[in-house]
């Protein structure tokens, strides 16, 4: 049994979309849903951790306090965190460590975002010391540019095809079509995907994740509190990985346009993306063979294939075989992105890593409806945030 366990008493989301309303509204909606799910009154919560948004001004930079004030101040300690796409995992880690340290029994974690249309762009001004500004100025390197580089490399190295990438999108669209929280509830055929506009060759419009509005929240507690609350059998967080890379990291990654150099010190045996889930497996005392499902960050359809390998479902170069066999489709050996993934949600940055955990909880409780993975007992999430943020959570029953 893992030693760092906390219980997940409740989960909640505000549906993803392009609603154009205040992000606080989505966050509060998600918190209320999670508290209701946990059968817990807000006034019993002893700590709140918020996942920040960078696109909604000051209230977004202090999201924990923003949500606490909106719910009604109760005097509890607060923290707000930002780690790009890994924000939600960091916020959950803050709550978990506080619970494990015995400093509180029950905590709320929430993240929400309201997003502009189109490409994510860097902060304004002449920012010649900011790599995120420079990559746009000097190279025109948008986020899809990086996704395109990874996808092309899979094709040249492993024989992936455009059909494979379209297959991922089509699969996830079938998974997410019945998900009430998904933004895109439409089944796409591979032909439709392949007919959509080319964005970053070989990736097409329907294969690149959009930016979305949305909110997600979880209620975490100590195992003792869960028992006293009559929820001793609630799904548990068995591990959270929030690791950074080990020098030298020679894998090109947003927002950098150069990597570390391996000329002096050799690259670590396990690259950064491989080490993210590995750290979670080590903490939980589990391995990929124990998984029933996985929620991975399909910022592009092709990136989902990279994650199969990064989380150890198969060896490098074998992801296409898994996909083609139907192993990662619901009903297969190890369904990936049963929620529909980012392909059906789009990305609401600070909420997304929390939303991945919400899906695992619904799956492990058997509440996932038409997208239910039969008999799910162990699930993993995997995700990576700009500037070296790993994010992986293992949930068990």
């Amino acid at each position, binding site marked *: 049994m893992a030693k760092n366990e906390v219980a997940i008493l409740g989960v909640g989301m505000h549906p993803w979309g392009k609603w154009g309303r205040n992000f606080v509204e989505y966050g509060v909606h998600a918190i209320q849903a999670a508290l209701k799910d946990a059968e817990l009154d807000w006034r019993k919560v002893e700590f709140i951790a918020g996942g920040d948004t960078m696109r909604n001004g000051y209230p977004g930079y202090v999201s924990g306090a923003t949500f606490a004030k909106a719910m009604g101040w109760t005097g509890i300690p607060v923290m707000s965190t930002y780690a790009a796409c890994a924000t939600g995992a960091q916020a959950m880690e803050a709550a978990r460590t506080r619970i494990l340290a015995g400093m509180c029994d029950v905590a709320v974690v929430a993240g929400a975002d309201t997003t502009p249309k189109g490409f994510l762009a860097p902060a304004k001004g002449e920012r010649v010391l900011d790599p995120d500004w420079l990559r*746009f100025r000097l190279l025109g390197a948008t986020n899809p540019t990086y996704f395109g580089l990874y996808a092309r490399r899979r094709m040249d190295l492993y024989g992936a095809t455009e059909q494979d990438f379209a297959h991922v999108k089509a699969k996830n669209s079938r998974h997410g079509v019945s998900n009430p929280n998904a933004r895109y509830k439409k089944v796409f055929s591979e032909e439709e995907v392949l007919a959509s506009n080319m964005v970053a060759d070989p990736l097409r419009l329907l294969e690149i994740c959009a930016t979305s509005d949305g909110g997600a929240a979880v209620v975490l507690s100590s195992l003792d509190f869960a028992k006293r609350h009559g929820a001793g059998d609630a799904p548990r967080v068995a591990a959270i990985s929030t690791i950074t890379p080990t020098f030298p990291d*020679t894998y090109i990654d947003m927002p950098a*346009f150069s990597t570390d150099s391996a000329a002096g010190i050799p690259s670590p045996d396990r690259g950064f993306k491989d080490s993210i889930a590995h750290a979670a497996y080590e903490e939980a005392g589990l391995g990929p063979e124990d998984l029933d499902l996985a929620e991975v960050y399909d910022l592009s359809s092709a990136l989902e294939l990279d994650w199969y390998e990064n989380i150890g479902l198969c060896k490098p170069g074998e992801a296409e075989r898994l996909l083609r066999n139907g192993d990662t489709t619901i009903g297969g050996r190890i369904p990936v992105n049963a929620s529909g993934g980012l392909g059906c949600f789009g990305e609401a940055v600070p909420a997304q890593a929390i939303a991945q955990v919400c899906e695992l909880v619904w799956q492990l409780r058997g509440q996932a409806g038409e997208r239910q993975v039969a008999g799910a007992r162990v699930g993993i999430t995997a995700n990576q945030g700009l500037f070296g943020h790993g994010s992986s959570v293992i949930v068990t029953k």
Partner: protein
Amino acid sequence: MSKNRVPAIEGWFTLDEASPQLLGLRDPGSGSYFFPKDVAVSHAPGYDDAELEEVALSRTGKLWSYTTNHYKPPEPYMAPDPFEPYTVAAVELSQERMVVMGQLAPGVSAEQLEVGMEMELVLDTLYEDDENEYVVWKWKPVAA
């Protein structure tokens, strides 16, 4: 009257049109290279007090991957009007064992590219105004 050719960013590469080189830093203790020269400290753990030396990086390397952007990126990219798709290449410098991205040089098509092929550094105009052409590094197949 011809325009001045000035770097789009100061101090990142030599302006030698025939054989330009990126300018980086080397930490002689760990043997690691750094580009760009963001902060004057070695990023190799344990070498943070090393005296860094400025070095010109290899002009050649192997193509790691490439992609062509078909949509106009947001500012601060200075996109030509009308917008033209452009290819971005990532190249692994063989001596420095590091990957550096750059746009593909004009006159080369992405169809000619293959992961693993030998590439070299060239200079080309990124954008221009009434007085200046702003120059940046780009990648080109050695064979092209």
